[in-house]
């Protein structure tokens, strides 16, 4: 099989459909098959492409050429010219005008490396992270200066609220609202906590930010402190991130010397300082209340919520807890304004999202893309297609606690609302791309093994549930699973969700739930036919191994 050469997208918003987009799509498929290109060219419907002047539109990558309006009669000519002769199909191109959404983002980046022209990662990989002057030359600390000298705290919160920024740690809670809650309480002192305990398997976006652009985290936390009335900040960083800790410590001491941290910053009466607190390797400490417990010197176990950290956080005081990626969105928003920020992404999930892309794709790594891009585009454009021309079976978003997204959802826009509607979650930013050789039982087993090891053991549903679910999945993968096992697994999954004390046990059920929902037949094959369709499970028939 040849690697995918071109990706053809057909707009399929209601207006395009009304103007015959489906017929265009059908004819494209037929014409591509007729030209014997079906192994090299992928055609798909993409939803709203961000402009409505020439619908239906056909966009062809990697050239990012935009055709429109395309009628079914145009299709043979389009395929012949663009895909066979590899030249622009004359007369069909849409007029050039300002684009919006992800099409604009991709078009503006034609012929560049994925590392260029970014928002959150603008400076990562460009500046010397241990050189504060380098940060300043690249517009560093200007947002802090603007906030402190030209804006009131309420204005800062308003701007963040208007930008529509949502938490990038996985839950997608509006950041402006969180800040407002903290600013409205009269309980002092207040704290800003940056959650840098990035432990989800397969994610390393925060590490990249911390290592490549540590000053941006400091600047953002200071802005947050000013906005809500906090004078102290903590960065809770994963213990294994040694280089990131060193670079943060260097950056903090530079910021103190330059007066970006300390007393009367930029001549205002605002003071702020930051402490680094290294974690000791527990996954659950990425949960905000467990993280707070850990900073306080206690066992990293989650608290019961409510009350939420916005009123009862660190040392029982109001605290903002923001993920690294979330908070580094703040300086660009303050600098360029909420309206500028809303130009990226979708109307309900503005801005960009950073993903680590890994698994069975040709190119792995870390990308920043606008919200609302589809999995298919990410794989084709950034992953350079599936490895060995294989086809996509599923993607696991956001590490072990993320969703298992079947290939049928690869045209669903990657944003909070679209994913929630489809019953999956965006997670914290890992895209594990799996081909047809991946067995879903094996995948669930690996995830449950992770949760089993990370369970603290405090509550029974999680302690016993994760252990028992892992045993059952192992038995199924050895070919000795029974119908009763499947029923038990279903029940365990429900119990984990409902009765676990904290998020760890609750999310441990997600892989089981998703596998049952999307791949039930494959699980049944293991139990009833004693066959692993993907050929990945040992199926040795020995229960001893299953223990």
């Amino acid at each position, binding site marked *: 099989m040849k690697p995918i050469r071109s990706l053809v997208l057909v707009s399929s918003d209601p207006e395009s459909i009304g103007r015959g987009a489906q017929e265009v799509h059908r004819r494209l498929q037929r014409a591509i098959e007729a030209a014997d290109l079906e192994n090299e060219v992928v055609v798909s419907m993409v939803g709203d492409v961000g402009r409505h002047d020439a619908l239906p539109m056909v966009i062809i990558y990697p050239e990012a050429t935009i055709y429109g309006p395309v009628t079914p009669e145009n299709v043979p000519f389009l395929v012949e010219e663009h895909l066979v002769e590899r030249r622009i199909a004359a007369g069909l191109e849409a007029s050039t005008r300002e684009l919006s959404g992800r099409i604009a983002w991709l078009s503006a980046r034609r012929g*560049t490396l994925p590392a260029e022209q970014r928002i959150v990662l603008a400076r*990562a990989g460009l500046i*010397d992270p241990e050189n504060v002057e380098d940060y300043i030359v690249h517009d560093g600390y200007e947002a802090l200066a603007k906030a402190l000298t030209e804006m009131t705290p309420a204005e800062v919160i308003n701007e963040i609220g208007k930008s529509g920024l949502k938490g990038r740690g996985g839950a997608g809670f509006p950041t402006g609202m969180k800040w407002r809650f903290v600013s409205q309480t009269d309980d002092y002192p207040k704290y800003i906590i940056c959650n840098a305990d990035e432990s989800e398997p397969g994610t390393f976006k925060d590490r990249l930010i911390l*290592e490549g*652009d540590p000053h941006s985290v400091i600047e953002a936390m200071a802005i947050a402190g000013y906005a809500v009335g906090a004078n102290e900040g903590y960065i809770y960083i994963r213990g294994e991130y040694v280089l990131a800790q060193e670079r943060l410590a260097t950056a903090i001491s530079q910021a103190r010397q330059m007066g970006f941290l300390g007393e009367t910053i*930029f001549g205002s009466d605002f003071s702020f300082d930051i402490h680094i607190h290294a974690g000791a390797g527990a996954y659950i400490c990425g949960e905000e209340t467990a993280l707070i417990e850990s900073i306080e010197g206690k066992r990293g176990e989650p608290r019961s919520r409510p009350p939420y950290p916005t009123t009862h956080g660190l040392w029982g005081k109001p605290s903002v807890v923001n993920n690294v990626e979330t908070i580094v969105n703040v300086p660009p928003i303050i600098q360029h304004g909420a309206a500028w920020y809303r130009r990226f992404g979708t109307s309900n999930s503005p801005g960009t999202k950073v993903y680590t892309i890994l698994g069975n794709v040709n190119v*792995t790594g870390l990308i920043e893309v606008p919200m609302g891009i589809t999995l298919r585009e990410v794989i084709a*454009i950034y992953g350079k297609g599936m490895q060995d021309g294989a086809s996509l079976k599923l993607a696991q978003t956001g590490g072990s606690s993320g969703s298992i997204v079947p290939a049928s959802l690869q045209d669903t826009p990657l944003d909070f609302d679209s994913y929630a509607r489809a019953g999956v979650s965006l997670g914290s930013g890992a895209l594990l791309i799996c081909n047809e050789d991946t067995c879903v039982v094996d995948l669930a087993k690996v995830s449950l093994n992770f949760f089993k090891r990370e369970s603290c053991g405090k509550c029974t549903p999680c302690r016993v549930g994760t252990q028992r679910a892992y045993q059952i999945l192992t038995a199924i993968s050895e070919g000795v699973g029974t119908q009763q096992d499947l029923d038990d697994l279903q029940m365990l999954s429900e119990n984990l969700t409902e009765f676990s004390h904290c998020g760890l046990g609750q999310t441990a059920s997600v892989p089981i739930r998703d596998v049952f929902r999307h791949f039930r037949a494959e699980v049944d094959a293991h139990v009833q036919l004693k066959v692993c369709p993907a050929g990945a499970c040992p199926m040795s028939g020995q229960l001893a191994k299953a223990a």
Partner: protein
Amino acid sequence: MSAVKSLEDLRRVKEEELERRKARAASSRAQITVGMGTCGIAAGARETMQTILEAIEDENLGDIIVSQTGCVGLCEWDPIVEVAIGQEPKVTYGKVSPEKAKAIMREHIMESKIIRKYVIPAYA
């Protein structure tokens, strides 16, 4: 480093640094940047950096600025080395082993010939 007490101070620091850079760029012929995130280092960026520094010393290339940066996200291509000669657009090399680094120093830095086969391809 002097304390920055106002927006004007910040602008002044920025201007001064930009001036310094202009002066340094005028007196240097090339700038080499090595990606030194954990991923780069794990892939051998320290050895690559070492090789580049040794080549500079061996060949007495006093007019070259070498600096480090974080990871750009192209982890597949680590270690990554960027080379910019004068005002020319920078060239991004991927999977730069010490051997490739030597070749880049010899051909790109000393003879101004870009080694196309080591360059990371653009994505679209």
